């Protein structure tokens, strides 16, 4: 008997993030059963994710029962800010992690009493690239850009723009002081995602928040079956 080595290629077709996607699918099912509309808020550091959520929670008042998961590298600052407006906030510390993964969201949700909750905001880690490819079990991905980042940010982050169900353009109150080309920004978005709604907002002045909240209400109505 002789031994011979042969080199063979074994087809093993499989999604690389399949394990993450399975957890996300289970989370999505669980949220759907409760009629919770969940959004994954993705934006750069300093784009105003936390400020937008603070303003949103303040505007929603008692009309809704939101819960918030907030991803951050190390601090509790964002969670503490949001806890002033909502008593169902879980901070997810990612350590060195540049994005949230489905398992972290599942574990954070397990810490919350979701009875009666109808909206879930997941504030991702400040990053326009890494979070996009990781399904968390959300109903909608919201891409948050801001005027201070420059008008080429959409073109430079095609994955987020293409995957987004809504684009928010924040800090619109600063428009008179900046040279941000809003038409050019919108044209870049349209090339990558022809039908995505774009809403201009200011978390500081409250401008445009009514449109953003109307979009949330519409999504929520769809999920809870009351549309």
């Amino acid at each position, binding site marked *: 008997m002789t031994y*011979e080595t042969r*080199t063979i290629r074994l087809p093993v*077709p*499989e999604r*690389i993030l399949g394990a993450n996607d399975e957890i996300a699918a289970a989370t999505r099912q669980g949220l759907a059963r409760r009629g919770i509309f969940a959004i994954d808020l993705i934006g750069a550091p300093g784009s105003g994710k936390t400020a937008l959520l603070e303003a949103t929670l303040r505007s929603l008042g008692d009309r809704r029962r939101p819960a918030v998961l907030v991803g951050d590298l190390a601090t509790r600052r964002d969670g503490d800010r949001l806890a002033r407006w909502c008593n169902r906030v879980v901070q997810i510390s990612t350590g060195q992690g*540049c994005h949230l993964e489905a398992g972290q969201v599942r574990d954070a949700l397990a810490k919350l009493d979701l009875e009666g909750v109808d909206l879930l905001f997941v504030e991702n880690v400040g990053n326009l690239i890494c979070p*996009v490819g990781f399904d968390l079990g959300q109903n909608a991905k919201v891409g948050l850009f801001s005027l201070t980042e420059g008008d080429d940010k959409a*073109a430079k982050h095609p994955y987020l723009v293409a*995957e987004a169900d809504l684009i928010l353009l924040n800090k619109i109150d600063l428009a008179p002081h900046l040279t941000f080309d809003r038409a050019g920004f919108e044209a870049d978005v349209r090339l990558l995602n022809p039908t995505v709604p774009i809403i201009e907002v200011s978390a500081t002045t409250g401008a445009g928040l009514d449109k953003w909240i109307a979009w949330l209400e519409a999504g929520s109505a769809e999920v809870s079956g009351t549309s």
Partner: protein
Amino acid sequence: MHEFSIAEALAAQVLRHTPAGALVRGAEIRIGALRGIEPAALQMSWQAVTHGTAIDGCLLSVEQLPWTITCSNCGRSWSSQKPFVDCVCGDTSPTPTGTDELDLVSITVDEEDSR
């Protein structure tokens, strides 16, 4: 560096698919243009996560799928590594379309064959 998370998930998959006693020479993966994966960062992460494991030295081959560019002005369609390019007809905003595959395709292994 989402490349690191991806490399970790991939290493676990390759190990799971490796037949007992086989030496893994390579892993072949396919990535869509939308993913925005940096091949150098992925290779660096791959080396880091496989170091000292049973698949140390396994060669990672990455097929990066290009963007499809379509010009609404003249109707041309072509492949490009970059999403924002001009068309030869002069149009400066043809539409880029990418896909979001992130797939393990195959593994290449040495198996001892007894005859």
